[in-house]
């Protein structure tokens, strides 16, 4: 069963909510992040995710965007394996079919009544789920309960 889904915590990440100021150039905001990931979560709003520190980001975006550090606020779990899509589909009431949700797609949604930011990393498919730190234990409990049920059942 473990080979159906692998779930690992992406530890040591820096995270920030980035919100564009009025009239800001979104291109400049995106460029300012450099190598980091920028996941769109709303109009002019992104979750910035980086292995490197984002401490400099507010200064780099001064006047362009407001930045709130969220490094402690979320835990990001990575889901991979042949059962990853099925697992997350059982949780999220959004269409994860490749036709509707592919690499780079982001959704702000809920899994088991917990708010999540979900994005698809690659076509394998691999997904990341950012969840409030306070919900992490309830979320893990849900995952641990769901993975065994992914195994196909004999008739």
């Amino acid at each position, binding site marked *: *069963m473990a080979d159906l889904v692998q779930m690992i915590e992406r530890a040591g990440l820096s995270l920030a*909510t980035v*919100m*564009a*100021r*009025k009239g800001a150039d979104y291109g400049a905001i995106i460029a300012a992040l450099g190598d980091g990931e920028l996941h769109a979560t709303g109009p002019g709003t992104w979750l910035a995710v980086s292995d490197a520190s984002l*401490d400099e980001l507010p200064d780099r975006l001064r006047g362009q*965007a*407001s930045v*709130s*550090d*969220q*490094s*402690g*606020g*979320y835990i990001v779990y990575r889901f991979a394996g042949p059962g990853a899509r099925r697992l997350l*589909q*059982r949780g*999220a*009431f*959004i*269409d994860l*079919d490749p*036709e*509707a949700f592919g690499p780079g797609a982001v959704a702000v949604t809920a899994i*088991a*009544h*917990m708010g999540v930011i979900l994005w698809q990393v690659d076509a394998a498919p691999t997904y990341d789920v950012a969840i*409030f*730190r*306070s*919900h*992490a*234990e*309830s*979320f893990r*409990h*849900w995952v641990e*309960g*769901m*993975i*065994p*049920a992914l*195994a196909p*059942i*004999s008739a």
Partner: protein
Amino acid sequence: MSRLPTGGLVDRNQPLRFSFDGKSYQGFQGDTLASALLANDVTLVGRSFKYHRPRGILTAGSEEPNALVTLRSGARAEPNTRATTIELYDGLTASSQNRWPSLGFDLMAVNGLFSPLFVAGFYYKTFMWPAAFWEKLYEPIIRRAAGLGALSMLPDPDSYDADHGFCDLLVVGAGPAGLAAALTAARAGKRVFLVDEDSRMGGRLLAELHEIDGDDGRRWVDRTIAELAACPRVTLLPRTVLFGAYDGGVYGAVERVSDHLPTPLPGQPRQRLWKIVATRAILATGAIERPLVFAGNDVPGVMTSSAVQAYVRRWSVLPGKQVVFFTTCDSGWKAVHDLLRAGVIPAAIIEARAHVAPDVKALAGAVPSFLGAQIIGTRGGKRLKGVDLRDAQGRTWRLDADVLAMAGGWNPAVGLGCNLGARPRWSDELNAFLLDHPPAGMAMAGAAAGQFGLGAALASGIAAAAEFGTMAAPRTSDDPADGRPLWHVPHRRGKAFVDYQHDVTDSDVALAAREGFTSVEHMKRYTTLGMATDQGKMGQVNGNALLAQATGKTMAEAGTILSRPPYLPVAIGTLAGHHRDEHFRPVRQTAGHGWAAEQGAVFTDAGQWKRAQWFPKAGERDWLESVCREVNAVRTGVGICDVSTLGKIDVHGPDAGALLDRLYINTFSTLPVGKARYGVMLREDGFVMDDGTTSRLADDHFFVTTTTVNAAKVMQHIDYARQVLWPELDVQATSVTEQWATYAIAGPQSRALLAALLPELDLSNEALPYMGALSFRWLGVSARLFRLSFSGELAYELSVPASHGDRLIRALFELGRAFDAVPYGTEALGVMRIEKGHAAGNELNGQTTAADLGMGRMMSTKKDFIGRVMAQRPALTDAARPVLVGLKPVDPAARLRGGAHLLPKGADAIAANDQGHVTSVAYSPTLGHWIGLALLAKGASRHGERIIVHDPVRGADVEVEVCHPVFVDLEGVRVRG
């Protein structure tokens, strides 16, 4: 044994043992409990609801009203399970219900003798008065006598989960029409969900003999399912009941994942709740055969014709030795034909119509038939022995029979299509209610659309999926599907049942009409027809017809009811899914939760949050002793409390100050950087919404805090204000509640403790005065220190990223040992805030104004803000309003109770004299007696007055003195220390 030697869709190589009412039997893989019972000649399976009449198996499907059994035993016992839908497994146990002491000898059958008492509406008539008897006497007796099945009262050992489906086309029902529709869309490459309640797809093709494309119809089913299963974009869900249609193309379904197994496989749920979003849906839900209403139509052995056909063809079971058909339509003759082909020769066919087409008549071969005849009575109690019929010439005949197969015509299963309000229309041509105008995105096909012949059903399935593609219709016979309804056979004696499950008879419907309940909706409620677990699937249309006859209306004028979800009963556990017991909702834990748990904290719920309520120490007698210790420690030394659950919002942007000025009653744009200010927000209606401190961390950055329970509401309020009310403001808002772990460090020793933790910081009054805020770094991460006090002591709130919250709390207590630092919980926090007269949730109750809470003067007159205008309403500025005061008992030993009422001394304890109520109470260890906060009419001018706290629920009256709500350090010297 009544198993035919060959044929059927049972595996004779896989015998299965099972027991019913303690007796052992054997069936085969592929059987239902009903087919296996019939194969073992068990025909009496239950007792009826009201009269406890012996009942047998009436149908072969989920519409079964009679054969309700308790499946399994112990914690897994499931009452009211339809024997016709239970898949047999090895070791299955089931028992009958609603009988005492036994199924064969039921004392409650005496109800039948008193049946004149139990007519429609008897609840209303018999148990009207005295009113007090209802709850204590009548209702418990009725419930005991009438209950169907009993719960085990043990926790459900199984688990349930949920899944979500998205598709271009949802097909409900995998009979010929559904299979054709699904195949059409699947071949066009569409995403298709095919849902069927049966364990085996195929619908009536499993029960009837048909040829499709020159081959056995069942082989066409097998080929079609194989092709569908091979399509990666097709999801087949057998054993799945689609129970409801909802707005936006959302459908609910329950997959019975493990119900066909003795126990679920490890890790597997028993059932799974599906929410399916479908661009288009086709209801190929088939039709349900109508019973006929004649005297004695409920004797075990009386069955629907389609059920007899199914038991013979699908399960190879002969339900009796002398099978008589009573039919009003061609499908009855077709059933006779199918029996003949299986080697079963029916005894007679009694046709209500005077004429049938020659090709239809030929279907019955040499079986004796009576045209223009009716069954006028049955013989037998626990098992049918014979029937009485009247022929076209008026002669009566007595036939021996142990099975009577009723073919009363077909009711298209349009229920799901009515869930969103579409109303079925009566078709005089088809003698059925049809859904001509299903909701947008939904189409009907097959028998559900009145296409009763196989060829027509297949064609309608293909046509319903035409927008996705097309395919050639399979070649098949177009079987005759004519008929004329016979709604009622008049009788002098006996009972003719309309609703089997609720024991509603033809005379009950007639009584309803006589008493003025002439609409189908009123008749339904008065007689309870259609209100049992089968929800009128068998009896509703017959009831409508009898009502129409009694009131001189046509079927179209009488109309029918709309059905609501669920189409079939759904277990509550399935809807709850993962969310049961302590996981009934997600839990939020602060970063310091683990540490607090290690200290033995008692936790309380604040919304989803777990908060440490107090930290009991060995030897402490009760919570009060722990809480008093914690309060005393804070007031004399230093205590630490996790306040991470408070809502926290970053408000950024050049116009951040301007927005906050419009949100709060007081002014924030003038707040200097590095300072905090207490603020109050009103709702638009002028009442207080929330309070908290807001700090300015930069010119364009404010840090707003809210109460724990209002965090989400205030965030929504801010977003509404900036996005909807004033989109021209350049301001951004982000919830950072989760980002920061925050600890209140309070008490005279708090500065010394912080100095030990943060030696590089200047914590002097000059550098960080009361209501000061500063940002710095701790262990390489950002940290913030606010000099705020809820306790009234010298106090700080220290925040670090939640990822470092556990390290911080451990570091604080490591260093705190030298200061005898104690952790304190929400109880001590509450005691100290009451001692300080701070308003909290009990006072911010949605009915108080800023002035009520003593903060009227905070309301700026120099600016506009949300709630300003409505706060000036006369009722909100009335000088007589109750306002916040303190209460001290005159007798220091007296205890105060929250919620108690306030009366003037000497006044009678009546509502007219009520002057307010106690909002919060605490035992104050600082003062050594109970204290309270209260909302008292004109309270501000009544300090010093003695009044009565009246608590009729929990205790005697207590005399108290009204005082200022701040009990401790009124001047606020300590916080500035």
